[in-house]
């Protein structure tokens, strides 16, 4: 393993984490809801792709359609959650909201167990993406390059959406002051619904993309949601840029742990979290005002 391949596999490892964590942190930043169910949304995305692709070797268009379908269905599940449960609890205290989303986590996970069973599934990558390529004399799996590419596209897309579009302007306005946003005529209900849907779609996308790399089972979400919590803590609650930086940091350090210090594998997250909590409790890019919970 050379430095470059470790670096790229680390970044590729960080991309799904970034997708999940950015959705989580976006929902928190705008709506003020820490969505415990986020990890289960992620799993639904992964399981949907395994069902669509099955045991075949998919072509690239099938794979893309499967991934997008996974993200879309999960977005729908998220929006359904917002309209049926989350919306009715905005005025209640935070603990009610935490418990309600925790209940949704259990429900979605239970439903996933009912539909897909407890066994783990694996799927094939499209043939073109299953190989590897040589860059500067080191072997890089093509799928990792795809992940890095998708991560970059989503990061840039999110940046443009939030900072440059009209929708983004209303999102930022509502994140700052929801009552004021409503007073100047923004449709806060709709924006919050869309943000919840967008965040969920990111989780679904992450699940769909990671499906070919891991064995997928309904309990995959536990490990993943905790890792994305770790990333949100490291990056700062409510900061999308923070979650990008943190995801890359965590991904790369995990890859280096795999390559050079195997006994630390699986624990790098927790070490980083402990360090951040001791040195900078509000996270790398977190703002101090987010003590509102």
């Amino acid at each position, binding site marked *: 393993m050379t430095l470059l391949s470790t670096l790229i596999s680390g970044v590729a490892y960080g991309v799904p984490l970034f997708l999940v964590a950015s959705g989580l942190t976006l929902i928190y930043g705008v709506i003020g809801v*820490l969505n415990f169910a986020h990890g289960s949304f992620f799993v639904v995305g992964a399981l949907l792709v395994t069902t669509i692709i099955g045991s075949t070797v998919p072509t690239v268009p099938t794979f893309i359609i499967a991934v997008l379908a996974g993200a879309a269905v999960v977005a729908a599940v998220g929006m359904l959650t917002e309209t049926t449960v989350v919306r009715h609890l905005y005025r209640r205290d935070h603990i009610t909201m935490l418990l*309600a989303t925790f*209940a949704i986590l259990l429900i979605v*996970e*239970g439903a996933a167990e009912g539909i897909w069973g407890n066994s783990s599934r694996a799927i094939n990558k499209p043939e073109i993406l299953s190989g590897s390529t040589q860059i500067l004399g080191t072997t890089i799996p093509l799928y990792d390059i795809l992940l890095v590419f998708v991560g970059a596209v989503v990061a840039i897309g999110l940046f443009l959406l939030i900072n440059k579009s009209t929708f983004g302007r209303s999102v930022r306005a509502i994140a700052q002051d929801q009552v004021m946003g409503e007073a100047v005529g923004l449709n806060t209900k709709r924006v919050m619904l869309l943000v919840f849907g967008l965040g969920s779609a990111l989780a679904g996308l992450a699940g769909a993309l990671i499906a070919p790399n891991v064995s997928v089972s309904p309990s995959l979400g536990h490990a993943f949601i905790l890792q994305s919590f770790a990333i949100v*803590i490291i990056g700062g609650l409510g900061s999308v840029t923070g979650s990008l930086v943190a995801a890359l940091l965590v991904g790369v350090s995990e890859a280096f742990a795999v390559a050079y210090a195997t006994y630390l594998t699986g624990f790098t997250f927790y070490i980083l979290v402990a360090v951040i909590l001791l040195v900078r409790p509000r996270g790398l890019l977190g703002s101090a005002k987010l003590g509102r919970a």
Partner: protein
Amino acid sequence: MSVSVRNPAPPINAGPPFVTASSRSRFDLRPIYEPLIFLLVTTAAYFVMPPNMQYVLGIAVIYALLATSLGVLFGWTGIYTFGHAAFFGIGAYATALLKEQAWGPLAFLGMSALIAVIAAVLIGLIGQRLAKVEFAMLTMIVGQIAYLLTFRVPVLQGDNGIYSIPRGDVFGIDLTPPVSFWWYSIIVVAIVMGVLRRIHLSPFGESLNAIRDDAVKAAAIGIPVKSLRLAAFALAGGVAGLAGGLFAQQGSIVTPSTLSFTFSGQIIIMALLGGMMGFWGPALGAILFQFINALVFGNSTHGTLVLGIILLAVVMLFPSGVLGVFARLRDLLMRSRSRQ
């Protein structure tokens, strides 16, 4: 209940002005007779039940203690934790790992509680600077680390768990027969509940409630918010650890599921079902939950789904649990009576 702050203004070097409870509660007998009623009612129930239900009740009273320890955090102090199973599991594993020692069962419980307290203090210190939601996330992460460690550390035996944990004997009474273990566990639980009830009614308990209601105002009247939060976390961790030790002796086996994320969720559901705010709410909820689980969903394969639906229903419809429903019924009754 009348609550008064110590008056007149204390001299400069005085300690923090703890909220003093009224003299009525200082000589309160509730810490004595309430656990006694609890003991008598559960024991009476135990002896009229068929053996399989006796088994359920035996676990339920241990969970009652565990849920009450969670109530210390959620209900009394307003600390949200999603990894409480970790302390229960730490206590259970402590008893399991020490099984070779020739100690009495009570010494095992003491060790379990002590080790859990140490763990709780460490986590509390790390998380001291965090806001509520971040702290909830931290507890969840810590719980997961504890769970992962059971698979990584060879002594802890991973999924197989540690088995043949002895029950031993107390004051010459062998605890192996279920009936003598019932007496042992219910007496331990009742005593600890009594101690907790005493703490709940003490100035310390009142200060915790003040922190829950408004941490800024509590700090403004001189309550040492951070150290009391830490103390509450240590207390809750210790009691959970003790319950874990009891659980290990009861089942004579400890597996990673005692530390799992789902179990943390179950503890919350138990406490919430009974009502977090009253002292006896979590205990009532735990017993209720165990029986609902055993009677209705015992054979269901969709446990997680049903659990989630129960939790969602409780959160959305009865946010203050069974005790809250009782209170609402009592209010309705009073109102209709006053109208006549």
